């Protein structure tokens, strides 16, 4: 495998007779912001779950930050940050207590200073003592980003990060993603439905259809390859439906 931040080799995942991922081979370079696109049920979340070691692949292998998801799952977990779709926290605990918990599980011994630094980066100070149960969806999403980057991971996985956010929340999140990538060099792998967000944040994209990768390239090349199309949306529908000349 190459020295990509993420590299998969014939990665497959089946549930009984159903195939969720079918021989997926993709590579995401270090420092890229990669957007994985696809309809509902295309296998996007399964891909993230396998890459974050939440699920074991049925066949094939993947390396994340140089660690195999099958042979060195602990190494993968130590190297990544993960924001699941509809992230939830311990509502009875305050913001600080939640973040302290996840930071310690990630191996930070005295995490308080780092937590304050991360909250400052995310412009989310002043809520330390507030219980997370009282937070709005947008606030929870920011806590989700905070817990994912506390331990300075080299790869950050975001599963439908804009799901359920209002336009302001979407914009704030987009700015955060761009900043984390630009300032801290994090490789970001995100699943999303919002093609407009992909255009504004991603450097490369992949399109999944029925568990198969039907397209992978940089965003710039993808747009250049379809000069006749007005938007990424048009290109997406052509690639996704297989109508590519």
């Amino acid at each position: 495998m190459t020295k990509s931040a993420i590299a998969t080799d014939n990665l497959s995942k089946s549930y009984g007779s159903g195939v969720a991922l079918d021989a997926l081979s993709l590579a995401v370079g270090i420092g890229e912001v990669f957007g994985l696109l696809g309809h509902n049920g295309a296998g996007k979340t399964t891909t993230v779950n396998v890459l974050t070691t939440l699920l074991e692949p049925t066949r094939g292998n993947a390396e994340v930050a140089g660690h195999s998801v099958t042979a060195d799952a602990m190494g993968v977990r130590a190297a990544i940050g993960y924001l699941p779709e509809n992230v939830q926290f311990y509502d009875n605990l305050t913001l600080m207590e939640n973040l302290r918990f996840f930071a310690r599980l990630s191996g930070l011994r005295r995490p308080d200073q780092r937590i304050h630094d991360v909250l400052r980066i995310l412009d989310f100070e002043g809520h330390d003592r507030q219980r997370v149960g009282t937070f709005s969806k947008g606030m929870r999403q920011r806590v989700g980003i905070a817990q994912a980057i506390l331990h300075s991971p080299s790869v950050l996985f975001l599963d439908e990060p804009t799901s359920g956010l209002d336009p302001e929340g979407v914009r704030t999140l987009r700015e955060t993603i761009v900043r984390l990538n630009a300032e801290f060099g994090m490789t970001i792998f995100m699943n999303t439905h919002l093609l407009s967000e992909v255009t504004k944040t991603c450097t490369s994209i992949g399109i999944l259809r029925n568990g198969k990768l039907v397209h992978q390239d940089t965003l710039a090349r993808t747009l250049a390859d379809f000069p006749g199309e007005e938007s990424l949306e048009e290109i997406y529908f052509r690639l996704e439906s297989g109508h590519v000349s």
Partner: protein
Amino acid sequence: MSSTWVIAQKELLDLRRDRLFAVLIAFLAVATLISVGVAAASFRTQLDAYNLYVQQLAASGSTTVPAAPQLFPLQLLRGGVEYLEILGALFAIVLGYGTVAKEKYRGTLQLLLSRPVGRFAIPAGKVLGLAVVWFIVVALLTVTTTVAILVIGNAPLQGIDIARILIAAVVAWLYLLFWSALAIGITALSHRLSTGLIVAIVVWLVFVLIIPQIGDTMDPDNQVPGGLFATLQIQKPDELKVLANFAVFDSIRNGLEVSSITKHFERLSFAFLGIKDKYNQQPLGLVWADMWGYAITLAAAILASVTFAVGFTTRRNLQRKIS
């Protein structure tokens, strides 16, 4: 700081702010205190009846003074032990179930499993957290009931009584931990959360209520109030002779009872507290000589329960719903 201890600390913090937990423990404490109060009131009634009887005897010119009823302070704890063995076990199941179920239904499991924690850290952390919780709860109940014996029961306690109470407290702690760990393992193994709770409660029903109840019903001491042989004024040696003819029946009754962990807890507690008349005011060494088998079985059951919880609360079992 190990991941296990980090998870245990989180459980402690979470439960400290859990209203259901506060209500359950308050209920247990109040029920235990009331049982001490009722037992003390019952003794006072006996004492009043005795005093009245003595006065009437004196008024009638009799010089006979019958033996006064004796107060054995630790016997005031009988109701408390019974509440712990039934309600305590049920609450322990609810808490054990809750520690796993909450992670699943509130959706924090994925975050937890995405962290670099060892194979056993999550279940071990949860068991450790509940062990600390039950230690604190039992310690508080021990202190409050001891104070209740002194204040409500107006009964003096010796050093040896405190030692007996402490032994019973350790037994209670282990017993509650057994049920919590069992519930953790069952919930982790169940495909549906509701199934986990139902299975755990069925196990509780069988081993806490049904089996001990069958055993109690078969016990001649429970056939009539005060005991069959005592009511018929049959002395102990004669009682043993009669029972020798029903050895198989008694073996079946005893076998049924000892198949329940609850009976082990009850027999140990009743023996060390002297609630069982046979062991009342007996030296601890003598009680231990009779009860060590129960203690070993209880310890083995707890070890099995914790092993079950830690062994079966695997990533695969926990994330069955994640796809």
